[in-house]
C-alpha cells in the first residue's frame, strides 16, 4: 500500500510537472502545477510530514495558484501566440535536464547503501520510546502530570499514539529558529510594501501614458 501510494503521488507530481511544461495555455499550466503540488503534498504526507504537506496544499493550491490565474486573467493572455520552436532552445531544454537527471541517477548510485533501504515505519513503539524523552525533567525525574506537554500527551496517548508533528515543528521553530521567524515576518512585510509600490508606480505610468 505504501509503495503504491508513493508511486501514485510520485506519478502525479511528475506528470503534473510535465503537463505544466507542455501545455500551451498558461491557465492549463497553472492547473497542472496544482496537480503536481498535490502529488508533492501526498509525498510529504507519506514521509510523515503532515504539517508541511497541508501547508503546501494550502499555500500553493490555495493562494499561489489563484494569484497566477488571476494575473493570467488580468493580463488576458489566453490568446498567446503559439509556441515558437527554436531548435537550439529545445535542444538545450531537453539535453540539460536529461544530463541533470543522469547525474542525479549517478549521485544516487554513489550514495551509501543505507539510502536505498526502505524507511523504517514510525510505529507505536517508536512513539512510546520518544515519549519517554519528553517525560523527563533535566535531572532525570518524571514530570508531574500538570507539566506534561501536548507533545508528550499525544505521543504517549493510551489508545492511539500519534506523531504530533505540528507541535514538534512549532517547538523547533520557536525554540531554535525564533530569530529567522521574526526576519521572515519582516520579509513578508517588505514584500507587501514592495508589491504595493510596484503596482502603484505602474499605475502612475499608465496615467502618464494616458
Amino acid at each position, binding site marked *: 500500500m505504501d509503495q503504491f501510494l508513493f508511486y501514485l503521488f510520485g506519478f502525479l507530481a511528475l506528470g503534473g510537472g510535465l503537463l505544466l511544461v507542455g501545455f500551451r495555455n498558461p491557465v492549463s499550466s497553472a492547473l497542472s502545477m496544482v496537480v503536481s503540488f498535490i502529488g508533492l503534498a501526498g509525498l510529504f504526507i507519506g514521509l510523515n510530514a503532515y504539517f508541511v504537506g497541508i501547508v503546501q496544499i494550502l499555500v500553493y493550491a490555495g493562494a499561489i495558484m489563484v494569484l497566477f490565474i488571476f494575473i493570467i486573467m488580468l493580463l488576458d493572455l489566453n490568446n498567446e501566440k503559439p509556441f515558437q520552436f527554436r531548435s537550439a532552445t529545445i535542444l*538545450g*531544454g531537453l539535453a540539460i*535536464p536529461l544530463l541533470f537527471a543522469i*547525474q542525479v541517477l*549517478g549521485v544516487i548510485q554513489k550514495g551509501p547503501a543505507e539510502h536505498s533501504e526502505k524507511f523504517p515505519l514510525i510505529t507505536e513503539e517508536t512513539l512510546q520510546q520518544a515519549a519517554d524523552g519528553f517525560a523527563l525533567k533535566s535531572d532525570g525525574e518524571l514530570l508531574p502530570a500538570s507539566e506534561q506537554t501536548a507533545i508528550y500527551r499525544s505521543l504517549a496517548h493510551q489508545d492511539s499514539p500519534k506523531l504530533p508533528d505540528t507541535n514538534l515543528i512549532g517547538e523547533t521553530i520557536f525554540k531554535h529558529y525564533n530569530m529567522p521567524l521574526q526576519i521572515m515576518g519582516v520579509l513578508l512585510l517588505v514584500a507587501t510594501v514592495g508589491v504595493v509600490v510596484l503596482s502603484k508606480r505602474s499605475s502612475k505610468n499608465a496615467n502618464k501614458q494616458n
Partner: protein
Amino acid sequence: MHTIAWLILGLPLLSATCIHLGFKRNQGLSTLIATSSALITLILSLVILGNGKDTSTAFSWVGAMGEHFKGIEIGLRIDQLSRGMLIVVTGVGFLVHLFSLTYMKDDRAKARYFCGLSLFMFSMTGIVLASNFIMMFIFWELVGLSSYLLIGHWYQKPSAADASKKAFLTNRIGDFGFMIGILMLWGITGTVTFSELELWSATPAPFNSTYLGIALLCIFAGAVGKSAQAPLHVWLPDAMEGPTPVSALIHAATMVAAGVYMLARFFTSVDLEIIAFAPQTIAWIGGITSLLAALMATQQDDIKKILAYSTLSQLGYMVMAVGLLNAQAGVFHLFTHAWFKALLFLGSGAVIYACHHEQNIWKMGGLRKKMPLTFLTFTIGTLALMGFPLTAGFFSKEQILEAALHQSTPLFVMAAIVATLTTFYMGRLLLVAFLGENRSKNSHHAKEVGALMLIPLVTLSVLAVISGYPFVASALSPLYDHVDFHFGPAFWASLTALVVGGGFAFTFYRNAETDPLSDKKIALVFRNKFYVDELYAQIVRFGQDCVAAIVHFIDELIIGGLIVGGCSRAAEGFGKLFGRLQSGNLHGYATLFGLGVILLIYITVFVP
C-alpha cells in the same frame, strides 16, 4: 661689515624683484633702480676692500641631520680672493649698466633687460662670496639662468632663443659633473665648506687620492661648462646673440671667469700636490682650448664672434695657469682680462650701435676717422689683449708664460703660439674694422657715440693699462703674487709673438677688401670652428633624439602595447566573450545556469 656684505648680495635681488613686480611698466624707473643698485654695490665693495679684514658669516639653510650631514649653509666668505673679485664684478657691472642706458635706449623690453642684469649681479656676487660648494652651486645655476634670460632677451629671433637654450643646456652638462664632484668631495672630506676644507687639507685623514682626483676633475667639469672650455665651449660664441653689453659683462668679464674663480677657490683651499694627474689634465684642457679658440678666431667675420673666441682663448690661458698649480697667475690674468675684455666688448658695442647693428667687420672699415675716441679706447684694449708691453695684459700673460715654462715645455710652446695668433687676429680686427675705407652704407653714416657710452670706455681703458702694475694689482686683484720682471725666455717669446703676429696681420689685411686667406682649405676649417658644432648636432640628433624616439617607440610598443596593452586587450577580449553570453535572453541564462549546476555537481561528486 657683515651687514655690508649681505647688502651687496641682497640689493641686486631686491632691485630685480622690485622691477619685476612693480615697475615693469615704468621703463625709466626700472633702469634707474638697477643702475643705482649697481652703483651702490660698487661703493659697498670698495668699502669692504678698504676695510680689508678677512671674515665670514653664515646662516643655516638646511639644518643638520644625523652625525654625518652637518646641514647646508648660506654663508659669505670675505677674503682677498672674494674682495678682489667683487670689485671686478661690481665694477664691470656698474659700467655695463651705464653703457646699457644708451645702448638699450630704444628697446621696448628695457625693464626686463635691467631686471635680468640685476638678477645676474645677485647671482654673480653670490658665487663670489659663497662660503661653500653647495651655495656656490646654487648661484652657479642662477648665473646660468640669468645668462639664459639675457641671451634670450630678443627671444623672438629664433637664433637668440636657440642660443640661450644651448647655453643653459651646455652648462647643465657641466653642472652634472660639478654636482658629482661636490658629492664625492663631501664623501671624502666630510665637508663642502672652504674653510673646513682648508682644515682638512692641513691634517688629512687617510684617503684614496685617486678618488679625490676624480672628484676634482668632476668639479672641474663645472668650470668646463661655465668657463666654456673644450669640449663644452660651443655655447659661448652662440651666446653673442644677446645684447652686446651683456656679452661684455657676462660672457667676457665675469660669469665665464667664474669657473676659474671656483678652481682658484678650491686650489687655494686644498693642497693638491699629491694628485698631480688631475691638475695636469686641467692644464692641458686649458691649453688645448686656448689654441683651438685662437685658431677659430682667425677666420671669423663677426666682430663679436672674434672677441668671443678670444675670450675662450684667454679663459684657456687662465685654466691652464690654475692647472699648473699657479692659481695666482690665473686669477691675475682673470682680473686684467676682465677690464680689457669688457672694454673691447663695450667698444664693439659702440661700433655696432653706431653702425646700426652691423656686426660684420668687412662691412665696416674706416671707423678711425668717424669715431676717434672709440678707436683709441678699442686700440688700448686690443694692445692689452695682445700683451703689448706696459699694458695690463702684458704683465698677467707674462706670469702665465713663466708658469708654463717652469712646469711643462709643450704647454709653454702652445701658449706662445696662442699669443702669436692673438696678435694676428686682433690685428686683423683692428685693421679691417677701423682702418682702410668705409665699405658699407652703415659704416659711412657712423658717428661718435654719446658721453654715457664713452665714460665706461674711457674708464675701462685706463684700467686696462694700469691694472697690471703692481701697485694697482696688489690692492685690487683677487690673488696677486708679485714676480720681479726679468728679460727671460717668457719675455722674448711674447715679444716675438707680438712682432710675428702683428707682422702677418699687417701684411695680409692692410687695406684688404675681402679676406685674402678665406679660400684656403685650412681657413675653411677654422671658419667652421673645426666642425665641432656640426659634430655635436649629430651627437644630439643620434645620441639623444634618435635614442629618444626609439625608446619612446619601444615604450609604446612593448610596455604600452604588449604588456599593458596585452593585459587590457585580454581583459577586453574576455569582456567581449562574456558580453556575448550576456545576451539578455532568459533562455540563454537558464541554459548557462543548468550547465553550471551540472558542472558543479560533476566537480563535487564525480571528480575524485
